[in-house]
């Protein structure tokens, strides 16, 4: 399978005054293959959203390359970037806040068509109706209504319709179901799966809920404090985590079954460190049960330990 998107040595930093920076994304090299769903997991503040925004050049990363469908996005500006954007869309966590409250649903979904220069109103209407039907919204019912008249789940459908209307190749979904109720989550996850099949989409799916990530992702990348820990196909990652952090995450998942005993995360006590001043070497070392002197001295590079399995650890749990 070929890569639809490839980021290389991506770095995102935020200045916070006093010459200090939040190291939100550091040296991330990761590819999204055509037609797959790549899951991206990691704790709050690990840099998932920063990475997503940097891919879309919102804003461009501090350093690194983003190669999308043959285009080096970091070198493109203005018109050129706008020409690529229709192929690259994003869906956000808070569906209600991500929709303009003053616009009618039809205008919201049509907006990307207007921006990308589809002038013919009849054509716009046709495409908006088609995409609404695809996501399970009745165009005649929702057309003139506004976002606040809808529930979170319905707003997420509207956001998905808007992301789909230009027939993109890749959709970056940033926590698309985290704000939704458990009983609505499954509806939206099923919808994303259906849309992916129907429109031949590739998805980068960001979430912190591992069960959700596993349910939709062909491969999964795990981030910790701005760096990648591990990349593997879902089945292998969940069966045999190679990075101690992945293993801890898995042991910490609250499983909805009272007969499955709580797993042991084996973490050292203490909180995650600040991204303002990340630990030297491996950023996980302050909580890692296997850390040795080398972990403080050298950054473990992301390396292949088996076919399709990459891990950034000096002492991986397998391989």
């Amino acid at each position, binding site marked *: 399978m070929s890569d639809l998107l490839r980021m290389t040595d991506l770095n995102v930093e935020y200045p916070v005054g006093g010459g200090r920076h939040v190291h939100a994304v550091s040296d991330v090299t990761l590819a999204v293959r055509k037609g797959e769903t790549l899951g991206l997991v990691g*704790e709050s503040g690990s840099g998932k959203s920063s990475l997503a925004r940097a891919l879309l050049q919102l804003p461009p990363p501090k350093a690194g390359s983003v190669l999308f469908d043959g285009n080096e996005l970091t070198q493109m500006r203005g018109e050129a970037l706008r020409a690529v954007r229709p192929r690259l869309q994003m869906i956000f966590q808070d569906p209600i806040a991500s929709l303009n409250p003053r616009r009618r649903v039809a205008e919201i979904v049509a907006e990307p068509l207007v921006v990308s220069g589809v002038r013919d109103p009849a054509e716009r209407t046709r495409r908006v109706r088609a995409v609404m039907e695809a996501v399970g919204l009745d165009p005649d019912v929702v057309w003139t209504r506004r976002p606040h008249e809808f529930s979170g789940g319905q707003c997420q459908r509207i956001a998905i319709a808007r992301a789909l209307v230009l027939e993109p190749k890749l959709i970056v979904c940033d926590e698309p179901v985290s704000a939704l109720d458990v009983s*609505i989550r499954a509806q939206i996850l099923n919808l994303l799966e259906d849309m992916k099949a129907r429109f031949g989409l590739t998805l980068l799916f960001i979430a912190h809920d591992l069960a959700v990530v596993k*349910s939709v992702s062909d491969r999964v990348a795990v981030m910790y404090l701005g760096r990648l820990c591990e990349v593997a196909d879902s089945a292998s990652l969940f069966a045999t985590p190679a990075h101690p952090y992945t293993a801890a995450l898995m042991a910490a998942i609250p499983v909805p079954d009272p007969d499955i005993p709580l797993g042991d995360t084996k973490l050292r*006590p203490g*909180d995650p460190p600040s991204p303002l001043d990340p630990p030297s070497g491996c950023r996980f070392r302050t909580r890692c049960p296997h850390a040795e002197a080398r972990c403080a001295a050298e950054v473990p590079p992301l390396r292949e330990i088996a076919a399709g399995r990459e891990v950034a650890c000096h002492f991986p749990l397998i391989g």
Partner: protein
Amino acid sequence: MSGAVSGGPLLSVRDARVGFGTVRGLLRAVDGVSFDLQAGRTLGIVGESGSGKSVLVRSLIGLVGTGSGAIVGGEVRLDGQDLRGLSAASFRHLLGRDIGIVFQDPMTSLNPVMKIGRQIGEGLRLNRGLDSAAAARRAVELLVEVGIPEPERRASQYPHELSGGMRQRVAIAIAIACEPKLLIADEPTTALDVTVQRQILDLLQREQRERGMAMILITHDLGVAAGRADDIMVMYAGRAVEMATTREIFRGPRMPYTEALLRSLPRLTDPTHTRLSAIPGRPPDLARRGTGCSFAPRCTYRSGRCEAEEPVLSREGGRGFACFNPLGTSGGAGA
């Protein structure tokens, strides 16, 4: 092993009701909920957003004021004492002393301009008559107990100087300082990462067991409830629709909503791209409730009666469910 501890329940709630007057009419946020909680046990309350979990529990402890236009009804007894008639001042007293509370966002219960050690010691001074020095010493001990490194230094810091996980530990230290009989935790770990969540839940459980406190744990995460609660109450649209031991709920739900909820969860044991069994539709508008079972429009087992009549929570062999067409006999191990 539910129930039969000597003496009555620690907390007894009968027909709790909370209504809010809104422009769209009376919103019945809590609509006739009854339950008992024994000392030393943890009751998990689960249900989706807006089902009334927080309003129920806040109303029990006087935090849903009639000042906000709320209509609060029903009977609440803590250790035999009738709580419904208490004045605001008596409630404040009760809260620090007999009831500890931990909320989702610790910043809502922490005072941003008071040092942490002083906040922890305050209840001890007010309710236990400790002098400042003794309260300060005890505050440091409590910081140690909740797993905060460098407790002396932390005691003289302000809440904003701590991470989210540490703030929640401080909130727990405040909640348990006066050895309350009842600990109420409303989504205590929802804002935290899974690894930190695990540590906080371990801490809560350990304190609850060591002190023999009763605990109400509100969570929308069925995984959290499965791992921490002895009994579970499932809420839907302001009502308790099922109540049973945790194992019974997970092994053999009787109420169709409980079953649907459990089935809609993605499971780690399922391969990728397994289709989820979604629950169609969404919960009813609480201000516009019609007749019948609130879950009926989404229920695959509904019959004519479900739309015409309201099922009440009936009890059968110690467990309760509100459904005219309850699911089969509860099967599975330990049921």
